């Protein structure tokens, strides 16, 4: 029996020609009464316990990010020199740093910045990857050739070196790091989207649509994009952990989010290393938070990939 995602893929493929007759694309006659994305989550709950665990971690992180102001009695930049470098206590559950700032508060606010940069960069990057990938696959020819050599050149760089260079030229700020990470993500992943779009482009229903007089915009929007969508979702979810980790590396080096705004990478950073000998919790808790977040997004992304697009497995 084919998996549900396969079935939904075929479903929208069959809906292609029907769309030309004016029928809505998303309602193929063969499909179940509920939409495909509900089905994916149902499958996840039934078959992917690790994916569910990842999802729970992500939800906790989201809750922390949204409720940071309510959850903590302290401000993220609130210093208290009397309470510097304190260990775990009832007042400060995870201790304090060299300026007496509450670590738990900073970690909770750090979730906000990680998610803000992560989701922002992924949204921008997915859009860019889709435009680049579908565009070059659809039009092909000389444009494709040159864009692909450009992508080759970009991928030859160690991403971190390139990002460090660009951010040092732009200067550190939340907006800059989000933009830069988004563009980098988009260029890197346009290859995967392009590959999928290339195979879909060859289907007869695309040819049929062209023969019936559909323009480029209509063909890409109603026939190619819906079928590339599962791949885009997979690339975006698996990419979130990478983007969050890269943001942390850059903030660690002092090129990402500028202080006093708390980020997990910045809290671990070289600048505070001298104090960490007295207060190791300053290093441990941000590292734990970062590992948990990356673990959560990895597990969720892996499970979604298996359910949505088994071809990308192990990629």
């Amino acid at each position, binding site marked *: 029996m084919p998996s549900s995602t396969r079935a939904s893929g075929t479903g929208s493929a069959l809906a292609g020609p029907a769309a030309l007759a004016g029928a809505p694309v998303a309602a193929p006659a063969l499909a179940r009464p509920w939409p495909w994305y509900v089905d994916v989550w149902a499958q996840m709950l039934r078959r992917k316990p*690790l994916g569910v665990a990842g999802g729970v971690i992500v939800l906790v992180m989201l809750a922390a990010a949204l409720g940071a102001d309510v959850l903590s009695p302290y401000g993220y930049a609130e210093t208290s020199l009397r309470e510097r470098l304190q260990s775990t206590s009832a007042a400060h559950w995870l201790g304090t740093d060299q300026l007496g700032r509450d670590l738990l508060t900073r970690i909770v606010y750090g979730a906000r910045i990680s998610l803000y940069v992560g989701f922002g960069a992924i949204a921008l990057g997915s859009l860019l990857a889709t435009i680049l990938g579908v565009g070059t696959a659809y039009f092909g020819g000389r444009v494709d050739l040159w864009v692909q*050599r*450009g992508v*080759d*050149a*970009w*991928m*030859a*760089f*160690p*991403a*971190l*070196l*390139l990002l*460090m*260079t*660009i951010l*040092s*030229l*732009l*200067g550190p700020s939340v907006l800059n790091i989000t933009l830069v990470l988004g563009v980098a993500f988009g260029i890197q992943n346009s290859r995967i989207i392009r590959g999928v779009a290339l195979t879909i482009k060859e289907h007869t229903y695309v040819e049929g649509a062209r023969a019936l007089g559909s323009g480029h915009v209509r063909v890409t929007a109603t026939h190619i994009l819906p079928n590339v969508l599962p791949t885009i979702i997979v690339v975006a979810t698996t990419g979130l*952990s990478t983007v969050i*980790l890269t943001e*942390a*590396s850059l903030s*660690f*080096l*002092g*090129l990402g989010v500028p202080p006093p705004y708390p980020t997990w*990478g910045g809290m*671990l950073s*070289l600048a505070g*290393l001298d104090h*960490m*000998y007295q207060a*190791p919790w300053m*290093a*441990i808790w*941000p*590292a734990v938070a*970062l*590992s*948990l977040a*990356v*673990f959560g997004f*990895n*597990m969720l992304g892996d499970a979604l990939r298996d359910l949505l697009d088994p071809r990308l497995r*192990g990629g």
Partner: protein
Amino acid sequence: MRQYVLRRVGLAIPTLFFVSVLVFAMMRLMPGDVVVRMVEGQAYAPTLEAMRKDLGLDRPAHVQYLEWIGGILTRGDFGTSYWTRQPIWDEFAARFPVTLELALLTILVSVVIGVTVGIVSAVRQNSAADYVGRVLAILALSVPYFGLAVVVVVVPAILFRWTPVWTYVAFTESPAENLKIMMVPALVFGVTRAGPIMRIMRSALLDVLRQEYIRTAWSKGLPERGIVLRHALKNALIPVISLIGLQMPLYIGGSVIMEAIFRLPGVGLFFFEALTRMDYPVVQSVNLIVAALVVGLNLAIDLSYAFLDPRIRYR
């Protein structure tokens, strides 16, 4: 085979051209003036105009580009550092062995761990050992190496009241001392990189073990050890090697962070210090050299497949 080599080398040339244009354009097209930053930040010149003239930025872009590339191609002249006034190539060449050693040791650690655990996991598929291995691989993927590095530097200092002195000793001076210093960053970095290697080793070996020549080997009555290690492993190593090749940029990018934490005088630290000192000629040339190295290495890895699997024939 020779034709294939020639064609691959021919394809690398346009990529390298794009790489050089990208590096060159970055410093000139970014919003924010490099010259203003260099004069205001480090006072490399008395006035903006003098700085601009010194960097050659007062001339048309194509002239500058040709001079830069021409110097590299004809004289091997990558320019001089603003901070030390030394030729960039000399400094790079002097520091490269440190980074290379770190990268090789890291790869060694990650391959030894990843391949061993991967083999056990594949041969004893679905056993307890397999599950433990797979969970460890996921954990290794999630722990940020710089976080682990900071914890590894800080925690012994507290537990044993012992702060190791991270002074680099060259391998040629004292191999034992050198390895003692290099092994810690290599272990930290290697352990976190072992995860993906283990996962791909496991799935590749599972694939190969199901092939017919392996069944033939079994039916000849060969012992399991011989079948796995002599017959299956060599073929299953191909994806592992391409993964290492693909991850080379990651190893190099990571070396910036590891060298900064452990104060190793390698290319990574050279690059990082050049960035913080706004020594942009160094940043530009190091980016180019590293990207060229990555392109060359990927080429070498592609060609090595022919050795590992004689069935691969190139036309």
